[in-house]
């Protein structure tokens, strides 16, 4: 029983870490609050669902097509909605607040567009649903695939930031945009790549989710909330801590629900949200920002 819960916690933690990674990239390098983030998870989920049911394409292949699709969508959003505002100092100052409204609009459009196109019916498909037993834990193939892909991407991201000079330049942009620019880092390009990568990661998470749960056009919002909880727990813009915080949330949620009941799930998540904001607004692992 305990091992089973532990496994469930690791799987949901990996998923939260993955979803939050995308959100954190966009916040970190652009200081934009993407509350449409969960809706990109939804887009990824539907891409996998329709590819599988209509065309018989494996979700494994959809991981690649979704990556391209969502990255292209991120590029479009960057060029059409954000580029001009980021380029003007006066507008850029207000963009962090305005981004809430921009992405809220985007979220409404995506949810209702999907609802119009696909209907609000919840859907699902069966892929790798055979159960494997190991060490007292039973797991479906799709859960193992989810865990593997999420772990590969999050660990890959950590390694990139730790060991690759381009990762260091990303950290530089996240921490001190103006200082990064004067040592030759093309901040605009880093921001563009970050938003493409952030959107693509959300899409990939959507493909993974679609293999293990029912999907609807409105499935995104809980992921947006979970991602914000994780990102705030880790400290906004702190990529590595955000990944760790994803697992923290997965554990608290899984064991919390097991000890109480599923009806307490939202209370747990929002409770953590409020608790962290009240007690450690700089994040569990962050250092307090000095007031100046």
């Amino acid at each position, binding site marked *: 029983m305990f091992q089973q819960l532990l496994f469930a916690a690791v799987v949901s933690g990996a998923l939260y870490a993955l979803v939050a990674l995308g959100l954190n990239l966009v916040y970190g390098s652009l200081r934009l609050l993407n509350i449409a983030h969960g809706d990109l998870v939804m887009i990824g989920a539907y891409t996998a669902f329709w590819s599988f049911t209509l065309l018989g394409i494996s979700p494994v292949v959809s991981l690649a097509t979704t990556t391209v699709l969502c990255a292209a969508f991120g590029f479009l959003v960057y060029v059409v909605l954000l580029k001009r505002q980021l380029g003007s100092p006066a507008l850029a100052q207000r963009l962090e607040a305005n981004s809430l409204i921009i992405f809220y609009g985007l979220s409404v459009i995506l949810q209702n567009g999907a609802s119009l196109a696909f209907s609000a019916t919840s859907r699902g498909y069966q892929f790798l649903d055979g159960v494997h037993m190991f060490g007292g834990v039973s797991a479906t193939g799709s859960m193992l695939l989810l865990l593997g892909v999420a772990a590969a991407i999050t660990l890959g991201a950590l390694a990139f930031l730790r060991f690759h*000079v381009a990762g*260091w*330049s990303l*950290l530089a942009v996240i921490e001190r945009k103006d200082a990064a*620019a004067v*040592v030759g*880092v093309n901040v605009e390009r880093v921001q563009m790549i970050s938003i493409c990568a952030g959107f693509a990661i959300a899409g990939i998470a959507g493909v993974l989710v679609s293999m293990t749960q029912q999907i609807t056009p409105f499935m995104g919002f809980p992921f947006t909330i979970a991602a914000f909880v994780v990102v705030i727990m880790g400290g906004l813009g702190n990529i590595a801590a955000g990944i760790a915080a994803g697992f923290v949330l997965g554990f608290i949620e899984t064991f919390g629900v097991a000890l109480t009941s599923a009806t307490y799930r939202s209370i747990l998540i929002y409770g953590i949200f409020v608790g962290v904001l009240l007690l450690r607004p700089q994040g569990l692992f962050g250092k307090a920002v000095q007031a100046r």
Partner: protein
Amino acid sequence: MTILDVQNVSKQFGGLKALQDVSFGVDEGTIFGLMGANGAGKTTLFGVIAGQIRPNGGSISFAGKPLAGQRPDQICRLGLGRTFQIVRPFGNLTVLDNVIVSAMYGSARAHRLADATAAGRQALEDVGLAPLAGQLAASLTLSNQKRLEIARALATGARLVLLDEVMAGLTATEVAGMTETLFRLRQERGLTILIIEHVMGALMNLSDRILVLDHGVPIAMGPPEQVVADENVLKVYFG
């Protein structure tokens, strides 16, 4: 040879005229001082030269190339580096990784990581930070973070660096050390330096020429001994 040529640069923030018709030239291999009270427009001028602030009028050229419309990272790759008055280290990176990023992205030449690492180590050596290469930048003392600012600008391969109050907050011994470092950099690297400094002794000692700004208006320019004797400067500083 004039490496930096500033012609009639003006900048206005709303109703505030931060810079009015500022013109000067900096010769290659010299140290050029910028003087003026707080709010005189010195840091704004740095922002304009480095491409972070768009001027309302005037033109700037560096090594014969006009800088108008170029992004800060493009200007950096032309060979122009700057430091910040309030230090802005990449605190989550080690001291060495800070300068490797500079060398990798700031230089005009295509770099391999090994080359960037070598250039970075050389820059740390030049400012005396080599022993601290492995530490996180956030853990350095203020005086060392100021050195890191300079090292980052050097690692880009800059021919001209804009130094914004690199001596403020340093002890007398540290000021002497920094002065010696800057002279050595000019000597060894043929570096041209444009420097803002409130530590007057150091500025007089370092500069070949000095420009004095008062509320965005240039009021005197020339060798240090001539500038300190200038009537306008005396009026602004001593009333």
